[in-house]
């Protein structure tokens, strides 16, 4: 095959991979949205009573049922729900009449995306650095073994257990970071919260990268690079790392769900405004349109990040799109 045609075929495969990811992402969002819908309407219990409580009168219940269209047949409700999703309009918030549910979700999306983005960046960079330090010749053997052990321990540490303790040590005892709930926490607060969120991710990235680097460590292309006079740093970072991008991107993608859950925990702990806080508030006040919108938005955030990761992977690594 001439080079131009090969490049065109490769590009075609790239778009095919992207297209299949988009379809899969849409399926995940649809599944999550449908689960929320089904859970709120089909499970035993009257949603209108969930909203108003047991003491509510029949007239009020009827009014809420009409607002939420609960008096229509289930399929009609489902069609209306899907139409609303496609138009990004799930009706007004029950607790703040006049504000659309999606507007409240949009307000909350940015802080959570910011938190998650900083956490993914910090976690991926820290994990890769730890793996390179543990693989390269710079540290003594014992130091490298300690990095490996540290990664294992960090990967097994639950965020919900260590985050409060670390916060207590650093915010209350050492007073180097803002206290939870501090409204003036600013960039320091964001950095600290994302740093905590990044720890499990960094540990998983570090372990996987370490294993992948160990696999390519003896490969001829690294020996050649070393024989041509490249320094160890250049050999590991410029030659070895690009070959293991696949596992790194995959492990980041599989950790995203956990990261989103961790973001909810941390938002609650630091009293930060965000998608997690909004979901919990909507849950506590039974604001069903906001709850549905927020969960779907969280799912959307999740699949978008995953699809971006996959696109980066196939763009960097020709093996991922089946090129020979």
């Amino acid at each position: 095959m001439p080079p131009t045609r090969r490049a065109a075929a490769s590009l075609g495969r790239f778009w095919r991979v992207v297209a299949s990811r988009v379809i899969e992402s849409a399926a995940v969002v649809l599944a999550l949205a449908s689960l929320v819908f089904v859970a709120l309407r089909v499970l035993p219990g009257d949603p209108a009573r969930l909203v108003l409580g047991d003491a509510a009168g029949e007239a009020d219940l009827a009014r809420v049922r009409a607002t939420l269209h609960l008096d229509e047949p289930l399929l009609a409700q489902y069609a209306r729900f899907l139409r609303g999703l496609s138009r990004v309009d799930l009706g007004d918030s029950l607790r703040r009449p006049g504000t659309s549910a999606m507007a409240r979700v949009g307000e909350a999306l940015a802080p959570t995306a910011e938190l998650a983005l900083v956490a993914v960046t910090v976690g991926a960079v820290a994990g890769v650095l730890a793996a390179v330090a543990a693989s390269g010749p710079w540290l003594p053997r014992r130091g490298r073994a300690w990095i490996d052990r540290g990664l294992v321990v960090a990967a097994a540490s639950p965020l919900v257990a260590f985050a409060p303790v670390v916060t207590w040590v650093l915010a209350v005892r050492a007073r180097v970071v803002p206290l939870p709930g501090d409204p003036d926490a600013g960039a320091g607060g964001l950095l600290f919260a994302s740093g905590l969120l990044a720890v499990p991710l960094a540990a998983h990235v570090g372990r996987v990268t370490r294993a992948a680097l160990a696999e390519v460590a003896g490969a001829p292309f690294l020996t050649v690079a070393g024989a041509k006079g490249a320094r160890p740093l250049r050999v590991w970072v410029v030659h070895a790392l690009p070959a293991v991008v696949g596992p790194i991107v995959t492990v980041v993608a599989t950790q995203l769900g956990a990261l989103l859950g961790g973001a909810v925990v941390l938002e609650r702990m630091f009293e930060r405004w965000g998608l997690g806080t909004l979901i919990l508030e909507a849950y506590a006040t039974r604001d069903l349109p906001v709850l549905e919108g927020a969960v779907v938005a969280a799912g959307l955030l999740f699949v978008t990040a995953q699809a971006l990761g996959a696109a980066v992977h196939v763009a960097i690594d020709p093996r991922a799109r089946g090129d020979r």
Partner: protein
Amino acid sequence: MRRGRWLHLAPLAAVVVACALGAVLAGGPAARLDPARAWCAPSAARLLGCGEAGVDLMAVVSSAALRAVALAVAVSLLSFAIGTPLGVAAALARGRLERLVERACDLVQAFPTFMLALAVLSAVRAPSRVHIGAVFALTAWAPFARLALAQTRVLRGAAFVEAAVALGRGRAGVLLRHVMPNVLGVVAVQLGSTGAAIVVSEAALAFVGLGPRDGVSLGGVLDQGVAAMLRAPHVLVAGAVAVFATSAAMLAAGRAAER
């Protein structure tokens, strides 16, 4: 059979015994309030101190950890019982079913489980432990199915399985005698990490306010601890150590199945 494999169960046994002892020593129900002692520091009478409204932390932490272990063991075994046959069946059926189960595992494993739990639990007013366990089981079967599928795929082409078929053993005989014993050992290793994940997720759910309705949960203790971080740090430490010890013991117990 590897010697000393039961040693891996020792941490879990230690956690359970310590919690049972703690519950007995503390006496009385976990939810007993004693407002005069609210947030009191650890002392001889209250070994772990008190929390909000004077609950005895020793009683709360031990019974919460015991309940978390019970939930984790029940859900992991249930997911094991659902996922393993599904994976084996998919690998033996080959073709479309195999691909379908594989894709389903991919999707479920990549799912934001915590969001799913929030969404489904919002349909009940105050979730019970059964509700919470059911939500975890919705996604926990996938790793078992994936492992069983991968292992069966290796086994279905193995020489000893071929030999058994050639010697005239029936499908059921090959499955029970040759495939299953080699699948179960590999899949059972997952029990530990699933159990640990459930202990942690239950604590995380309770931490953000979706705990079981009896209020006895390690996440509830952590929530109290964060709220009273400045005046009663012992609450925080007790909750964090309990979550860490329980999940680590679960992880270690999973290694008992390793060969």
